[in-house]
């Protein structure tokens, strides 16, 4: 890669992700409105699109309050960790064959998982340093939920990695030339998507925030742009999971006629909409039910998926 092209790709990805995160808040609010028989925000600018700008301005200029009882350095650093972890993960996503920061990296998937592991710290530290009981309860739930669901997430992917024979995301996309992995790996795809919802703590798995129980959960005490970073990290996380599912199971950029970037964006966009549809449709399970579902249903399913994939691959290699 030429150095100037690399810089363009890096900057383009960073700002692209930020723009997508900001716009998906808008998408979510308009879609929620659509699903719920109401207009949603439609007053600022054409179709209410400038609402995003208005929200950003509000977020930046609000009083940035650090509670006197908080652990200040940790309180400060927690949202940054979360935001960066999600942003850096995007480096591995191959959007098109030519547009990707490090899609060819041979530890691509492991890198993404490492960053997701880091993301847990942002929630835990944020909740802990706030020195607020609701935040603490939220952080406690988040820790258990995210660590558990990372396990199933990783296991569910083993099938894909075994079939493609690589951890690099662009290799995995290439390996789907003939058939998308969502067909042979359908079990893994479902487990991965569910775990992805839990990982981004979106409804129905938004227990760390669970506003009806915990007010705002782990970010109760956060305001202004620090809250904004948690907020953007959540939406960027949604986009990340959508992009990962696209790359890992839906053939990434591949598709007929239209240029690759359009195919990638369309697939990821539809997945984002599905995220939002889930949020409108489902209630929130209880904390212990969520954990039981993970360990008693998802774990055996992902193990079964790995086992069957391995067996099929071995049989094929033998034949």
């Amino acid at each position: 890669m030429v150095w100037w092209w690399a810089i363009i790709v890096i900057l383009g990805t960073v700002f692209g992700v930020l723009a997508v995160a900001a716009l998906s808040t808008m998408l979510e609010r308009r879609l929620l409105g659509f699903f719920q028989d109401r207009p949603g925000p439609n007053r600022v600018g054409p179709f209410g699109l400038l609402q995003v700008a208005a929200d950003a301005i509000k977020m930046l200029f609000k009083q940035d309050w650090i509670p006197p009882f908080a652990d200040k350095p940790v309180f400060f650093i927690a949202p940054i960790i979360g935001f960066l972890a999600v942003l850096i993960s995007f480096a591995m996503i191959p959007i098109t064959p030519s547009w990707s920061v490090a899609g060819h990296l041979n530890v691509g998937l492991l890198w993404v998982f490492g960053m997701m592991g880091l993301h847990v710290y942002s929630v835990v530290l944020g909740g802990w340093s706030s020195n607020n009981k609701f935040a603490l309860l939220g952080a406690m739930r988040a820790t258990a939920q995210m660590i558990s669901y990372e396990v199933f997430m990783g296991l569910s992917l083993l099938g894909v990695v075994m079939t493609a024979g690589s951890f690099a995301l662009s290799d995995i996309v290439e390996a789907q030339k003939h058939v998308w992995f969502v067909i042979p790996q359908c079990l893994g795809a479902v487990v991965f998507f569910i775990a992805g919802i839990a990982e981004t703590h979106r409804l129905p798995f938004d227990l760390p925030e669970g506003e009806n129980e915990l007010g705002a959960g782990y970010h109760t005490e956060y305001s202004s742009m620090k809250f904004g970073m948690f907020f953007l990290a959540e939406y960027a996380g949604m986009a990340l999971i959508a992009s990962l599912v696209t790359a890992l199971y839906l053939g990434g950029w591949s598709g007929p006629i239209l240029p690759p970037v359009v195919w990638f964006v369309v697939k990821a966009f539809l997945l984002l909409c599905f995220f939002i549809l889930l949020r409108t449709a489902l209630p929130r399970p209880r904390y212990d039910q969520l954990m039981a579902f993970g360990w008693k249903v998802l774990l055996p399913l992902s193990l079964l998926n790995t086992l069957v994939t391995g067996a099929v691959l071995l049989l094929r290699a033998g034949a």
Partner: protein
Amino acid sequence: MSEVLERSRLGAMGATVAALPPHMVLTEEATRDEVPTFWVSRGQIREVLKAVKRAGRLRMLFDLTAVDERQREHKAAGLPYGGYTVVYHLTSFDGPLDDLRLKVPVPADDATVPTITDLWPNANWLEREAWDLMGVVFEGHPALRRIMLPPTWEGHPLRKDHYARATERPPFTLTDEDMMREQEALKFDPEAWGMKRHSDNSDFMFLNVGPNHPSVHGVFRLMLQLEGEFIVDAVPDIGYHHRGAEKMAERQTWHSFIPYTDRVDYVGGVMNNFPYVMGVEKLAGITVPDRAKMIRIMLAEFFRLSSHMVFYGTMIQDLGQLSPVFFIFTDREHVFEIIEKICGFRMHPAFFRIGGVAMDLPKGWEGEVKAFLDYLPKRLDEYDKLVMQNPIFKARTKGVGVYSTEEAVEWGVTGPGLRATGHEWDYRKIAPYSGYDQIPFEVPVAHNGDCYDRALVHVEEMRQSLRIIRYCLENMPEGPYKAEHPLAMPPPKPRTMHDIETLIHHFVGVSWGPVMPPGEARSCIEATKGLNSYYLTSDGGTMSYRTRIRTPSFIHLQQIPLLARGATLADLIAIVGSVDFVMADVDR
């Protein structure tokens, strides 16, 4: 033969009291509302109550209140009045309607009675309220402290010598020191409620939920003792919505208090007018015309629908499902459109009048109502699929917050919360008022007494309300919408121009309001959330001498700690959501 008649008038509980040895009961009182009423000395009241409770099953302490008798002029002859009267109202939930009222006179300078919290657990809050507002001391009460008023309050506002309006006082000021003192007083002290700070192997976390919290439906505060996410114990704190509705009733004419009742259960609208106007009608001896009766039923059922819709939507939202509340509130908007077209007002129409309703139904009301009756059932079926059959909703609510019929009666639970335990008891069937006996409808029951069943009963009741409204639509009688009674309406305006006598009566009736004959009357209805009763005392004035408002929400809320113990924080939200209450209805 006469004795048999006498016994049937008394009911089983009254018969028990009548059969007690003569030294235990002071005398019997004849009342306008025909509730068997006995006077008992405070030395004997515990024994009498114990005897009544033991003589049968499902006997509820329906209400407990106090009346300041010191300024009462029209006291019935031969009754042993003291400075205050403590009134116990019992209702049997076993078989036909069976009420009993026991009155205990206490001297003004020594206003004490023994507590009965060991007989009925729900006496706890009722006694605290009577002490807080009337200053009657209940000896032996485990925690006799302020419940409606702030802990720093001085005086007992329902006493007749307590001021009723801020203008009777010097201007109110709040200094910084006072504010800090008030705030300190609200701090939660676990030891004061007998809670430990540590168990053998862990420290408890004390979590203050509310008065500002998304899931407590208003200004309700719950102090939780948590071990992890499990609730060890809970202490509810109420009174943030207290407006002194009972005191206001003593300063408003019989008519002008009607709009205040609307705001007691603010999602219940005219449902609150219902027991009040029926109570006044009993006092005045007014017969309501049939058309007015049916209009009342129809509007009350519309408000039952509207109130149940709020319950349904918010309960689901508390469990994290975001959409149904929007769909259901859209439907509620249709209810309000109809109510507005009939009453001219949406949430608090104050449409009922003593002796009837404010106006006749508008032209073309049938079409609006019919369109709505055709519209809603389909939507309800849709919500069944969306909510009631949703596996996550079931997982969150089934087996959570369970209580039995016996427990419900012990704790004073009525309405859908009682019917969800499998006990078919609806005041509209047991003691049909206002013509409910002519209307065919069923009483939905469920059998497990958990959060899911409470929701289920509410949903089925909405279908039954639609059925009642349809019957009203098809069978609305013709005739006047208001009773021709001098206490119900002033003389017709055109006639006042012809003779001075009519003019005077019109002037007095309009400017002062009607004078109700002295006496007492209680009237009870199956309101949206349970039994709502108004116990009115008239001293022959243009205003009530004492108005006791017994609301279901106040009684139901007391039970929350019992259901919460051992549950998780998330279960608590389901429980709070499923116990249908409105804070204004709790605090009055």
